[in-house]
């Protein structure tokens, strides 16, 4: 009997000591997860709260008075939101695919030691990282010479090659052993076959990482639309939300204009939240789907592949 008790405590202690650190770790991670989630939940909850109730009671995890006013205002005309979604999705998909093709081809050429024009070409890419024509000349080039204003392409072409991404890809390609290329050549593969069948399959982590960067870049851009898009049918999502918010905000915030203002009744507070909810949805899903490559892409850079 005397022996039975120590055995039991020993057993208990061993379970605890075996799991103690893991429990602590899980608990800490749980707390951090909750801390990350709370703001998101507050935003979603605020977007569904009545404007006046929100002012009275402040923000909470659950709407104090449920209301769809903010969504009603934004979705006044759902066809426009859907159209803008269409624009943004097309731009993101076309831009990312084209961008990856062009940038990986360029980066691969830059990574090949036996390519004669490697240095001048690298300098050409590098130069644009430091210098550009400036806003007005760029604007004149795009609108008057390339005649790209109010086209889908103007939202894609300016971001097709990002020098920084090209160098990231080149650095990754440089880590691939040269022997792959040499042995492929001996087996009779031509340059395209080497690139498509050897290099690209070995580079999925790098491509996925750059692809995710591209997706985020195209999805979040409103600057190009601000400069070059006048027709509402070509508004991308981010710019549409920017315009709705700025137009609602502008007249009430500008003292000169608000002296002349005639009735505007807009649930400004909750609109902001509803917009955030509408805008982050799909890109959050894309991030979840791609994040395993994302993590691998970052860590893989330094490790020699098998």
């Amino acid at each position, binding site marked *: 009997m005397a022996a039975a008790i120590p055995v039991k405590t020993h057993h208990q202690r061993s379970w605890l000591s075996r799991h103690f650190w893991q429990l602590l770790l899980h608990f800490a991670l749980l707390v951090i997860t909750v801390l990350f989630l709370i703001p998101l939940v507050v935003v979603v909850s605020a977007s569904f709260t009545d404007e006046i109730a929100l002012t009275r009671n402040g923000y909470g995890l659950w709407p104090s008075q449920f209301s769809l006013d903010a969504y009603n205002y934004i979705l006044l*005309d759902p066809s426009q939101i859907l159209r803008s979604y269409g624009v943004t999705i097309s731009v993101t998909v076309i831009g990312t695919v084209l961008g990856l093709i062009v940038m990986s081809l360029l980066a691969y050429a830059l990574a090949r030691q036996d390519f004669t024009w490697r240095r001048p070409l690298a300098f050409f890419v590098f130069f644009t990282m430091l210098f550009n024509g400036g806003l007005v000349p760029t604007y004149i080039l795009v609108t008057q010479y390339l005649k790209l204003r109010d086209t889908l392409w103007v939202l894609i072409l300016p971001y097709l090659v990002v020098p920084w991404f090209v160098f990231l890809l080149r650095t990754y390609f440089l880590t691939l052993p040269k022997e792959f290329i040499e042995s492929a050549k001996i087996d009779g593969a031509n340059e395209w076959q080497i690139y498509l069948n050897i290099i690209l399959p070995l580079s999925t982590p790098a491509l996925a990482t750059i692809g995710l960067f591209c997706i985020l870049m195209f999805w979040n851009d409103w600057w190009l639309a601000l400069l070059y898009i006048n027709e509402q049918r070509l508004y991308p999502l981010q710019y549409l939300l920017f315009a709705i918010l700025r137009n609602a905000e502008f007249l009430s915030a500008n003292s*000169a204009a608000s002296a002349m203002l005639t009735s505007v009744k807009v649930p400004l507070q909750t609109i902001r939240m509803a917009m955030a909810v509408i805008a982050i949805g799909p890109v959050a899903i894309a991030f979840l789907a791609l994040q395993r490559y994302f993590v691998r892409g970052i860590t893989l850079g330094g490790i020699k592949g098998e």
Partner: protein
Amino acid sequence: MSRTTKQMAAAAMIGLLLAACAAPAAAPKAAEAPKAGEQAQPAELPPVTITYTYGGNVFKDVDMVSEALSAIAQKKINATIKLKPIDWGAFDEKMKLAFAAGEECDIVFVAPWINNYIQNIVNGNIIPLDDLLPKYAPGLWKSMPESSWDAARVNGKIYGVLNQQIWVKPFGFSVRKDLADKYGLDVNAVQKYEDLEPFIKAVKEGEPDIIPLTSSYNWMFETAGFDPIVSQETPVAIRYDDKDLKVFNAAATPEFKASVELARKWYLAGYTPKDKIERADSEAMWRAGQFAMSMAGVVKPGGDIEARQRFGQDVYQKSVTQPFLTTAGSSATMNAICRTSKNPERAMMVLELLNTDVEFYNLISKGIEGRHWEWADKENKVIKPGPNNADYNPNTDWEFGNQFNAYYIDPEQAAQKVWEATYKLNNDSPPSAALGFNFNPEPVKTELANISAVVKELAEPLTNGMVDPETALPEYLKRLDEAGLQTVIAETQKQLNEWAQSRK
């Protein structure tokens, strides 16, 4: 390595040269002077398209409205109208680029607060209208006395068509009707903000759930009788009735001191929210009925009707300011003609329509009858929203032309004859001694930027009563002088004297 550096340096030089060449390349196009004159009879006018670029929501039905406007304009002046609204948030940026790139445009909205009027004149983006106005827009030209046009004059020339709307700034207070009645406030007896103190005190004691004041901010140049001739932010002013045009530091006056002391007193008494409230929040709190009153707002004819529509509260409003006409107030919204316009004469004729043709003007401001609006009371010119109101509802009458031609959107506006009252208020208000003077900020740009930084940092807590004026006011004055306020005052005085000289 050093070879690469040299290559880079050489390339950088070439890049700089290219950039330097690119800017003037656009200039020749923009420099073509418009040909005024050669008046043609309306029937013989060749067909043209006139674009109108302005800030505002881009509505779904904007092309439909363009077509309806064209139907009228084609009959009268053989012009097709193309409306080009640009979102407010992008308006400044897009116009700067469009002008820099020498893009063609005809009519464009300008103001001191967006798409800056003076800047556009200095950059040569808009043309003088002195010859065009009497010739092609006689109705518009005669709709205002010659002295009103002075507000748009820069270096003796008119570059913008003033939109008639509320030009004066009778600042005052708004107070909730139910509370004013409950605590026996005689609104008409209030001559200055201090007179409100007993009422505010009573609300503070009697209504625990209500904050008496949105803020204790009560400073407005106009309330003290000052005309802020440099800008609404810079504390440089003259007294509006001072024929000697003496420029002074408005922050160093007894009036400003009294204003910040009152703000401090009411702040300490707990009549205001503890922290400064963002404008959007404050509007929401108004709607939620958490405030009793606000100060330092424009009290205009029909303002109480608008406040009710906006905040859902019945209010009394009363001005504590002797209104007077200033350059900034009269030129608050204008339309101008671009230098790149191929048809400035026809653009001027369109401006004539916008300012004198009631049907044309209401078409652009309110949309199409039966679709975007319907008659509520045709006799008194009152309208109500139509079935497709959301597809075109700019709600910016003051942007497009003479607002006194606009249909009323509330029967009470018609009952109060708001436009007639506003017109009368504009007309009856004495002009500032500096009406027509437009300050050119170019020579003191650095000082103005420094002053603006000081004002942003120190003026807000001071005028809201959040700091003790005993120490904060001398500090503010010292920092203003260090930022170069005296230089600005001297420059303003110099420009003002030159302007006065040129008018003799």
